[in-house]
């Protein structure tokens, strides 16, 4: 199901593999590989022996799962009640919906056409029960339609694997000589009950048979699609600037959100141009909201970036990332919530300058000064993990330490004179050294240690100076000096 750009041709045997207990096993095989005799569930190394030109790709099971979940909602075009069935199936409750498509047979043809347009091969069947449909779709004839009373005859000739049983039970039934569902049906019920009285549903052929025949209830519980909240403005003639329509759209959207008790964290503004082109503007908020004025303010400078072309005649505003949201009163005296104001401010700054330029530094566990801080998103709730240092640290740090030229070096302590940014500084007093060793678990081999000094020059400028390395430490030539920060 995973579709990628470089699909192999059909005449090459390709399999998808997943990790098994003893090395990779085959997850799925294409048609050519199946013809070669390669079965899902067997080991890849064994199958390579059968078919040396076999191509193996790793399966994306989580991606398949998500795609199937999306397909569940997509299949609501045919009937309102759909659910996912295992890892590879959909179950659609088409009761009362088939006449809209011209009968059950015509509906199956329509479904197969639409699915093949998506690039999917499907095996379809209509049956009165979930179990019968499962068996017919996998082991029955193509597009089989099973009437209300025909389940007994249609299922009788299918293999016993169509009963949705687990592997040990299938093995047991095969050893008992029961190869088809019909053979299981013909066994007296009393003797089967005696044999499987304590078995679970997965291992109980009798209960599975009852489900397939409709004697045991098996309801289809459907997933809920998230409500689509959208406001749109249809215009009588093309316009070039959507700004006058935005406040009304935002208010309409927020009214809908309020009615449903929801808040949104994303807004998609879509502009449909007269020449068939479509433009998007997306904004995001850091907390879910339904404040029309705030949402409108996020679009303040973004709308101007839309290229109107020949004008547009339809504007839609859709809410994304919808969450439940209740009106809360945080304080008894009805005062406003300070945190909320802060989230609104961060939203405005993020919308205008991008989330990368609005950050909050937090401490990290590291002695190296440039690693002791980390920039995180402004409202990310992450506690400081680093401990506060007792040593004096500069107020300002340079992003990249700047090398100084030493004019007059002394054997111990910082240089007596150095040139930094084309100005000569004479060291009047200094404190140090404070030695910070490289972190061997992070740094590259050969990284030199640093000796930090707080120096004060003749004018009172206090700098944080460090020497990288020692004389003759075997990690490069003479040590170099850098300015890393400024003290108050």
């Amino acid at each position: 199901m995973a579709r990628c750009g470089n699909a192999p041709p059909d005449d090459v045997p390709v399999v998808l593999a997943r990790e098994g207990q003893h090395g990779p096993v085959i997850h799925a095989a294409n048609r050519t590989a199946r013809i070669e005799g390669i079965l899902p569930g067997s080991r890849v190394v064994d199958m390579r022996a059968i078919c040396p030109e076999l191509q193996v790709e790793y399966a994306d099971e989580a991606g398949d799962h998500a795609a199937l979940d999306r397909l569940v909602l997509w299949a609501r075009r045919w009937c309102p009640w759909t659910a996912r069935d295992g890892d590879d199936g959909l179950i659609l409750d088409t009761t009362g919906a088939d006449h809209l498509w011209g009968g059950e047979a015509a509906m199956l043809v329509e479904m197969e056409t639409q699915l093949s347009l998506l690039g999917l091969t499907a095996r379809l069947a209509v049956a009165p029960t979930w179990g019968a449909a499962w068996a017919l779709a996998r082991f029955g004839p193509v597009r089989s339609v099973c009437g209300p009373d025909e389940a007994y005859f249609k299922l009788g000739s299918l293999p016993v694997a169509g009963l949705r049983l687990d592997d040990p039970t299938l093995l047991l039934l095969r050893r008992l000589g029961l190869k088809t569902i019909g053979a299981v049906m013909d066994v007296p019920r009393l003797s089967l009950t005696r044999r499987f009285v304590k078995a679970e549903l997965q291992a109980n052929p009798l209960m599975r048979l009852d489900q397939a025949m409709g004697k045991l209830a098996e309801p289809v519980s459907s997933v809920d699609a998230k409500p689509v909240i959208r406001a749109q403005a249809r215009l009588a003639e093309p316009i070039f600037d959507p700004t006058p329509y935005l406040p009304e759209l935002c208010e309409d959207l927020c009214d809908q959100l309020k009615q449903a008790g929801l808040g949104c964290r994303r807004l998609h503004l879509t502009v449909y141009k007269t020449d068939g082109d479509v433009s998007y503007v997306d904004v995001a908020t850091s907390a879910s909201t339904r404040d029309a004025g705030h949402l409108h303010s996020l679009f303040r400078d973004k709308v101007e970036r839309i290229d109107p072309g020949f004008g547009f005649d339809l504007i839609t505003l859709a809410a994304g990332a919808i969450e439940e949201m209740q009106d809360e009163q945080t304080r008894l005296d009805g005062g406003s919530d300070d945190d909320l104001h802060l989230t609104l401010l961060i939203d405005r700054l993020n919308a205008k300058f991008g989330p990368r330029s609005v950050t909050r530094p937090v401490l990290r566990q590291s002695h190296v000064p440039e690693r002791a801080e980390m920039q995180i998103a402004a409202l990310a709730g992450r506690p400081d993990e680093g401990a506060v240092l007792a040593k004096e640290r500069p107020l300002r740090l340079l992003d990249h330490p700047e090398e100084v030229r030493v004019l007059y070096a002394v054997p111990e302590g910082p240089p007596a004179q150095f040139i930094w940014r084309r100005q000569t500084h004479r060291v009047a007093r200094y404190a140090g050294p404070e030695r910070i060793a490289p972190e061997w678990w992070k740094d590259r081999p050969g990284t030199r240690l640093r000796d930090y000094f707080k120096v004060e020059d003749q004018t009172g400028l206090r700098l944080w100076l460090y020497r990288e390395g020692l004389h003759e430490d075997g990690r490069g030539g003479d040590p170099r000096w850098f300015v890393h920060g400024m003290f108050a």
Partner: protein
Amino acid sequence: MHKTLAGQGVRPATMPHTLSEVFPAHPTDASAVGFVLSRLPRTNAPILWVQDRLSRKEAGRPALVGIGVDRPVIIVDLSRAADVLWAMEDGLRCRALGAVIGEVWGDPPSLDFTATKRLALRAEAANVACWLIRRAASPDLSAARDRWRIASLLSAPHPHDAQAPGSPRWALDLFRSRRSKPGQWVATYDRAADRVHLAPSARDRAVEPRDGALRERAAG
């Protein structure tokens, strides 16, 4: 009455927060930042710190360990001075902030009298302290209520080590103020107590007898 019930308490009458400008004598001098930090209100409210690109490149970024970890800092990195002013003005709408600090390099045309007037009015309306640190700039027309010039001086002697620099000392020059008398001081910053001790500058005119020779004033 109901204010006390809501846990607000009665605030002592303090000077309202407003816009102040600081001109460091040397662009790489961090004394201006130290002075601004020592004047901020002692709360745990977050600080909005807006820098333009040149300030960050030439004078570095604020280091969290140096400025103290107890209050969160939201740093906004921007490239143009106009954006810095926009972000500061937007931040001053938010009463949850403890202070807004902006750094602008040079004399950009967008930082004119009107821009500073807008900042000052917004800061006074929201009662949020707003500081504008202007490096490599000339103090021309501005609506800032207080304007300071700051330079580093040789630090005080270290109590235990004659070699080492001690508490930082700054030459403060309040050259224009709407609220108090302009003057010049030598400030010694006591890092442990987070206090600034002010002494009138030696070049100042004769001290009036009722003022006392040495004044101590708490920061903030």
